[in-house]
């Protein structure tokens, strides 16, 4: 198809055509059969041995470091006692159902808080960067909100919301520890997310807005169609790490008495001095956050430069 398109153009520009062919990445197949020359084969072989050597070095280094760590830990004087107190397999199996049930609460808090935080955070960021006069009071509110909730420790917000709001005795306000704890987390994280999104919006070059406006788009259309998509793309990595942090901090609602994974583990450790439940809770958090970060990495790689490296003019392939 591409060849037809080029063929359709004015004759007598053979130079330009072959030029275009040279530059177009990967729509070929039309070039004649090619058998690599000796030089090319030698280079390929060289690159292969280099790759093998790199792999070997990495493997040996890993084994050495891991071995050293295991030796140091297992030779520590208190290793035996620590192993029994923290890594008792039998205790782990016993407490797993309770801790997992607690983790389900963490997950729900995390999902709701993430969704609300992302949406409200983005809205606040747009609000703060908009120039609509009627929105001025809202803009002031957004600035004050972000300043306050970024500046006060999450723990303090949790205590204030968790114990302060119920004191108001508002009949319509749910007073469960999970709700109030979630609310406190949302309040704090929304402020952070708003700032990240604002940075993203401000990172889009003004010439992009000029181009959009030049095409007749209104200010709002330019923001929605040109600025925000680029802004969100620019900040996926920091936003994602914020969400991972949020997942961990969802454990703070245990302070208010909500029975989440941490609180369940805490309950399970009272009485004996076996702290295995905490380790179980930690492992469960890891089981969620590690795949999550990998997923986000993979997704943002597809969105960003890294995923497209192959196809970007000027990116090259550096050795």
């Amino acid at each position: 198809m591409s060849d037809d398109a080029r063929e359709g153009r004015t004759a007598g520009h053979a130079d330009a055509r072959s030029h275009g062919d040279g530059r177009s990445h990967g729509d070929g197949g039309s070039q004649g059969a090619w058998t690599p020359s000796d030089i090319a084969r030698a280079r390929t072989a060289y690159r292969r041995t280099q790759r093998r050597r790199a792999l070997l070095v990495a493997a040996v280094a890993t084994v050495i470091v891991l071995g050293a760590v295991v030796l140091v830990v297992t030779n520590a004087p208190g290793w035996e006692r620590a192993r029994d107190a923290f890594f008792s397999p039998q205790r782990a199996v016993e407490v797993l159902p309770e801790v997992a049930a607690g983790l389900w609460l963490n997950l729900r808090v995390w999902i709701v808080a993430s969704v609300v935080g992302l949406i409200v955070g983005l809205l606040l960021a747009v609000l703060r960067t908009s120039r609509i006069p009627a929105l001025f009071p809202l803009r002031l509110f957004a600035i004050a909100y972000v300043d306050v909730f970024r500046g006060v420790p999450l723990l303090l917000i949790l205590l204030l919301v968790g114990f302060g709001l119920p004191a108001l005795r508002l009949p319509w306000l749910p007073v469960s520890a999970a709700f109030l704890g979630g609310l406190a987390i949302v309040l704090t994280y929304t402020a952070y997310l708003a700032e990240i999104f604002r940075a993203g919006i401000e990172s889009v070059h003004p010439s992009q807005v000029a181009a959009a406006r030049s095409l007749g788009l209104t200010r709002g259309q330019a923001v929605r169609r040109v600025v925000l998509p680029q802004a969100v793309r620019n900040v996926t990595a920091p936003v994602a790490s914020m969400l991972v942090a949020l997942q961990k901090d969802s454990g703070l609602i245990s302070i208010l008495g909500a029975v989440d994974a941490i609180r369940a583990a805490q309950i399970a450790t009272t009485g004996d001095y076996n702290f295995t439940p905490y380790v179980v809770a930690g492992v469960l958090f890891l089981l969620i956050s590690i795949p999550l970060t990998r997923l986000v990495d993979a997704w943002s790689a597809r969105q960003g430069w890294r995923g497209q490296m192959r196809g970007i003019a000027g990116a090259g392939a550096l050795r």
Partner: protein
Amino acid sequence: MSRASDGGARPGKPDAPLLSLRGVRKTFGTGAGQHVVLDGIDLDVAEHQCVVLVGSSGSGKSTLLRAVDLLEEIDDGQILLDGEDVANPWVDANAVRARLALVFQQYNLFPHLRVLDNLTLAPRVVHRRPRPSAEADAHAILEKVGLTHRARAYPDQLSGGEQQRAAIARALVGGPELLLLDEVTSALDPALAGEVLDLLLALRAEGTTMLVATHEMRFARQVADEIVFLHEGRIHERGTPTQVLDHPQRDATREFLRRLG
């Protein structure tokens, strides 16, 4: 105000130029750092005419084009489009910009959109056209600039010349009444520059009015009805390509042409 057009086929309003600048002044900065970029520019572009702006780097060509597209606020003077002063802040700037099209010196393609979507964004969002008909138009224009095979690529994946042609294509989509072109051949090899030149000549034959900034005197010579030489914020010399390029009257013009070689 010598309008150098041949005055040939110009249906419609023969007398009122499509675009007139009157005493346009533009400065950047304030106080001691103030820098007068445009210092009382008078300029007419009649319908179907191609006016070419030349002048050394920093002489204000881009600024002038951006001011016409209402992307810069001018300090004084008038920008008359069909007789209406669009520099007035109460004029609907979006409506004016939708009638004009500017090809930016730096292209300013939208990196998050494929070439095709770069072209269809304005028709879909501004003119509320359904996607299929907008894409049909876009494909026709991509064919014109020889980019059919790159329609699904992202701007980052294009060579410099391809980006430039994509930017031209994006500007052509709305069927603008006035095309503003900023250095459209700077990134093209001679063969491609020739093609873009052919394209612009074809557009002019179709009746598109153009105001073009360029450093390429060969290009200016071929496409211009009138050449305007900007120097120190003023129009220093104007006339047909023959008058300005072959028989320059002023020292500054001669010096400028001599340095270009």
